[in-house]
């Protein structure tokens, strides 16, 4: 069974078409990069997969069932600016909030919840900082907090929205390694990014999106320059092509 299957997805936002006939699948063990220019509909596609936005047509199937918020076993890592970093909360408490939906109303976190938080913090190597207020963390540490929060649900599918934005190269490299190993641990990982170099380097598969799927394949198979110029709307002499080694 596929971890994630998107079929014929159409999404409109404010009466304008944003996604048309999007077809996408994801298997466990894959790290898939979702690439496209601003306004291509990358975040909208993630939100549609999470069933957070109304779709016009098409289906999203997660492990054989229709996607439902909080029920599908998808770990979501939104963009860093969605999070209130000046909130007086420690790293471990912030990660624990990832289990709020599963706990349900009126239930307090128990031993199993704290164990899940501990495992998630170990996984992103933040255990030593677990009592630190989130406001005192660096950008890379913050990104790892968000990943740990998603991992606290032990998801089999992980969606990452622009995890590299605003981070320096060493931090990007470290996070890239983390995502590769998370995928190898039998998870299906889908991430949107503008960092083409990192995507070509570490993803097992790339999906080029611009309102519709332009291309979908292994990085080595996407060397036709036209795919990239079509997706990003750049000229044939754009340095972008050198970046992704397309000819």
């Amino acid at each position, binding site marked *: 069974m596929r971890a994630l299957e998107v079929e014929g997805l159409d999404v409109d936002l404010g009466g304008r078409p944003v996604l048309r006939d999007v077809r996408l699948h994801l298997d466990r063990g894959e790290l898939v990069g979702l690439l496209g220019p601003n306004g291509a509909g990358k975040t909208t596609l993630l939100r549609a997969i*999470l069933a*957070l936005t109304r779709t016009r047509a098409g289906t999203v199937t997660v492990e054989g069932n229709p996607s*439902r*918020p*909080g*029920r599908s076993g*998808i770990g*979501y890592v*939104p963009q860093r600016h*969605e*999070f*209130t970093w*000046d*909130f*007086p*909360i*420690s790293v471990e*408490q*912030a990660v624990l*909030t*990832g289990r*709020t*939906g*599963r*706990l349900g*109303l*009126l239930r*307090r*976190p128990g031993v199993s919840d704290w164990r899940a938080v501990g495992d998630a913090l170990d996984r992103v*190597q*933040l*255990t*030593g*900082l*677990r*009592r*630190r*207020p989130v*406001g*005192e*963390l*660096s*950008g890379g*540490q*913050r990104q790892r907090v968000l990943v740990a*929060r998603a991992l606290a649900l032990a998801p089999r599918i992980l969606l990452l929205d622009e995890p590299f934005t605003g981070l*320096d190269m*060493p931090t990007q*490299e*470290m996070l890239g390694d983390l995502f590769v190993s998370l995928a190898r641990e039998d998870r299906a990982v889908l991430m949107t990014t503008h960092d083409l170099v990192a995507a070509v380097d570490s993803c097992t598969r790339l999906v080029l999106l611009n309102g519709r799927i332009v291309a979908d394949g292994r990085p080595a198979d996407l060397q036709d320059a036209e795919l990239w110029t079509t997706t990003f709307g750049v000229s044939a002499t754009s340095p972008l092509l050198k970046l992704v080694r397309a000819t």
Partner: protein
Amino acid sequence: MSITEFLTDLLNPDLAFLPKALAIAVMSSIVCGVVGCYVVLRGMAFIGDAVAHAVFPGIAVAFVLQGSLVLGGAVAGVVTALLIAIFAQNRRIKEDSIIGVFLVGAFALGIVIISQAPGYAGSLQQFLFGSITGIPDRDLYVVGGTGLVVLGLVLALHKEFVAVCLDREMSRAMGLSVFWLDIVLYVLVTLAVVISLQTIGNILVLALLITPAAAARLLTDRLGVMMLLAPVIGGTSAVVGLYLSWSYDTPVGGTIVLVATAIFLVAWLVAPRHGLLTRRWRRPSGPEPVDVNRPAPLPGLAHPPDPSPAVR
């Protein structure tokens, strides 16, 4: 007036309104302190302001009809909170403009309604600036009961409120009903405001909601501590403010708010780690404290080993 004299007055049966006023002021400032933590952390002070003004027409109607002021205010506040939440769904106008429209509109409605009551000037003053006299015994129970309901709901929904404050998008993805949690929070803010109106008055009630919570935020980086400190600061302000107001014959609402403001300023100066004076005193000995808004990078290490947890 000495504290002993104040205590004697509190026990004097001829001054029965004084302990009642004290009880209501303390109860309402405790509730406001707790709820105010969410208001401060979510940056929704303007919503608090709107709700505070929005309860006015309800109170005016209750006054004209001789009904319960607390109940009238609660109904009007909740209706306005719902209207704001619904109108804010239209993204063409920003939420703060919607709030601005309803805030002033509701207040204007209240003024027109209350002007229909004979001899309204005196009661208007009371609504706007608070008063310690003329509190019916019934209000004591209404305020106490409402306060317990509000605190109970905060306790029950705390982890959901925190999740929504932290990250709305993630909360939706987790299956939380962000819209309804917002509505419940607005209603809680409304109730906290309504039970405080009697002593503090309509204009100043926002201070009870914001100032103790803001002062508490300066003093700690831990939410649990903040939510205990804020009601303590609010309650202390109420007791000290009422004492000063009684001693020096100053308006009670204004005096309570001034005490809370003084506590806020002291917290701003001497807060541990981040206070203005604390930082100055520390400078010669310890290292520069970390600026919370600017994360400290660890240069020169591709995979920085995580340093030991911050000393707390």
